[in-house]
């Protein structure tokens, strides 16, 4: 039943040219703030969009290339600290206390002194739209640096090493309050207090901030633009030579290598690009949350993002987006809602336990996720019962999914 329903759905989507429903979805997404109002739903949507970017980034590593990365939070941390350093007063002594300002807003450039004159705000203040690309570049480099030692590893060893990196990176930030490893005296992170406030967004050609706490709509549109950019890059990459190499490596590393796929380069690109999107979203969240604090960068967050991918459907861009939106909204609204029930505890305190439960249930009952990529689904059910597979070959829907 389900299979025929899906074929019908597929045939409906296949008749429409892909851009039609994508443009429709985009228009809906753009108009969404007018429906959502300016309250907490809009705020939740903005956070969700940032999570969508991260989930899509991690999907490149886990879904496309099949490298289980449990330390994705490291790139969130690096991206957030990049905006913390380049968009706050963290380094007050730079440029003789006058600070460095590149296309920054008036609010990040001048402060009113007691005697009525204006003075320059110390610290580095670079325009948000420049910083997000700096963050992408820096996290991409770190993606390669952290990915390179793991190239020889596979499966769960790879997962544990990435997990270890994800734990080490925030510790280094946390402890670098007086120089790095005891060298120098610069404070890089303010320890557990974190860096705050962080500059908000202004367009490069304008001196005004694009949004305020009372009107978050422009922040939503900035995040949406970032998501659209991410989806575009993801789709182009998936269908590119590199994307096909990723899938080949995921399915069979030895076969891919013997067909001439350069394993080292292919994997490192996956790490670099996946990490870059983590930094991209991390920089946005650092600015939007107005604080960069090491407490945010815990292992649970890596698993949170991984759950989005697994629940949505590993390897499928639209599935990942659905998973990210679902989990993010569940985290924001679903769990507090459960608080009404007489269960004797606060469900928000055990949110990670709930995600863990979803991971468990999904993996046992439907490992391919809610909206699976057809190819991934076949891989996950490989070797379950050979007879069924043989019978299914005649089934048109199955063949269609193989081709997808």
């Amino acid at each position, binding site marked *: 039943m389900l299979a025929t329903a899906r074929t019908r759905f597929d045939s409906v989507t296949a008749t429409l040219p892909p851009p039609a429903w994508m443009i429709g979805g985009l228009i809906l997404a753009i108009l969404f703030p007018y429906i959502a109002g300016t309250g907490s739903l809009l705020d939740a949507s903005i956070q969700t969009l940032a999570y969508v970017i991260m989930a899509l980034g991690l999907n490149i590593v886990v879904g496309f290339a099949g490298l289980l990365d449990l330390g994705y939070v490291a790139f969130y941390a690096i991206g957030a600290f990049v905006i913390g350093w380049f968009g706050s007063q963290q380094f007050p002594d730079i440029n003789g206390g006058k600070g460095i300002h590149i296309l920054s807003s008036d609010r990040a450039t001048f402060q009113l002194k007691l005697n009525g004159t204006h003075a320059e705000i110390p610290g580095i203040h670079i325009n948000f739209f420049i910083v997000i690309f700096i963050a992408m570049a820096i996290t991409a480099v770190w993606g390669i640096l952290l990915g390179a030692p793991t190239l*020889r590893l596979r499966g*769960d060893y790879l997962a544990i*090493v990435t997990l270890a990196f994800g*734990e080490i990176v925030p510790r280094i930030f946390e402890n670098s309050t007086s120089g790095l490893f*005891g060298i120098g005296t610069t404070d890089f992170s303010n320890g557990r207090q974190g860096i705050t406030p962080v500059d908000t967004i202004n367009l490069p050609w304008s001196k005004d901030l694009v949004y305020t706490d009372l009107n978050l709509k422009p922040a939503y549109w900035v995040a949406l633009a970032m998501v659209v950019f991410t989806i575009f890059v993801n789709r182009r990459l998936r269908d590119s030579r590199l994307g096909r190499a990723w899938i080949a490596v995921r399915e069979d590393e*030895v076969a891919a290598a013997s067909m001439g796929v350069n394993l080292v380069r292919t994997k490192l690109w996956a790490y670099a690009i996946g990490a870059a999107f983590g930094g991209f979203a991390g920089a946005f969240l650092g600015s939007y949350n107005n604080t960069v604090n090491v407490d945010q960068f815990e292992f649970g967050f890596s*698993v949170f993002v991984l759950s989005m991918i697994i629940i949505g459907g590993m390897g499928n861009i639209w599935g990942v987006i659905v998973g990210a939106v679902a989990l993010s909204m569940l985290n924001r609204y679903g769990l507090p809602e459960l608080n009404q029930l007489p269960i004797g505890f606060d469900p928000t305190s055990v949110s990670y*336990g*709930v995600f863990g439960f979803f991971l468990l249930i999904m993996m046992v009952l439907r490992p391919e996720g809610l909206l699976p990529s057809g190819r991934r689904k076949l891989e996950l059910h490989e070797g379950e019962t050979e007879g069924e597979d043989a019978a299914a070959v005649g089934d048109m829907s199955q063949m269609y999914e193989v081709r997808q």
Partner: protein
Amino acid sequence: MEAASITETASAGPPARKLSDVINAYALPMLLVLALVAQFVHSPHDTLDDVKTGLSNGTIWALIALGYTLVYGIVELINFAHGEVFMIGSFVSVSLWATFGVDEGTSMPLMIGSIVVVLALAMLASGTLNVLIERVAYRPLRNAPKLAPLITAIGMSFILQNVGLLWRPTPDSAPDLIGSQKNYFTVFNVGIEHSDVFAVVVTVPLLIALLWFVGSTRYGKAMRATAQDPDAARLMGIDVDRTIQLTFLLGGLMAGAAGLIYALYNGTIRFNQGFTAGLIAFTAAVMGGIGNLKGAVIGGLIIGVIQAISDSGDYLGLPLGPQWTPAVVFGVLILVMVFRPQGLFGEETREG
């Protein structure tokens, strides 16, 4: 790793061991010994004290590491929830003492009796829990790609951690039954505390019993056969599912014992103690060569010493301290997994 292991078996032919192989095999242990000697020369007394703390703390890691290594040896799966099984062991112990009304004031014989009874119950609880985890989270995925059971393992770990959170939301203190901080005797100016003696006295018989069980009984033989080749073992009439269950039970028993020792040794228990402890113990298991029981014990002791030296805050003038310890341990984990996945002692495993 297949490519790497193929070349290794080809080059490491029978008699002629190349010098580079020898260096490769002994480089990391030698480096560790050198690092320790250097620190000893730097500050002898502190180092001895750290080694003492590290060895007794290391017995706890060794007990947990055995669970990882047993399970990995037999089903090639990192039982990510194992740290949480250990945490539940701690929680059960402390709760049982509270129920029985045992505290610092209890008379000596009664207290020793309570420790023995609670040890047995905590071990049983953790063992049963580990068997349940296997049944719920791993058995349905026995033939799935390797990624799948690792993900359910993480899910299970989060669920249990949050069960712990609901059970005891804040750090709790365990009753100081053994007077853990008191000096028992002093060697070379290093005070051996009650807790150190306690950890060793409980751990050593358990280790011997486990080694005997795996090495000398029919069940142990079945376990080793299943680890080598599950299909062949099944053909020989071994109940593979049963054997795997038994392996999880043994691992859980050890983790439960570790939980009790940890509670008395450290005096505080926390719902998230299992996460770090699990990773430390996993590092120990990899260090000793995963699947290798004695290796796991030695790995546990080594990682205990590394941790103690990092905790004490000064390594050859490098300002370390407790805030750096997780990074140091994870750094060691990465180094070992990347450069020496077969462990310090060089026994080939299926992963390496």
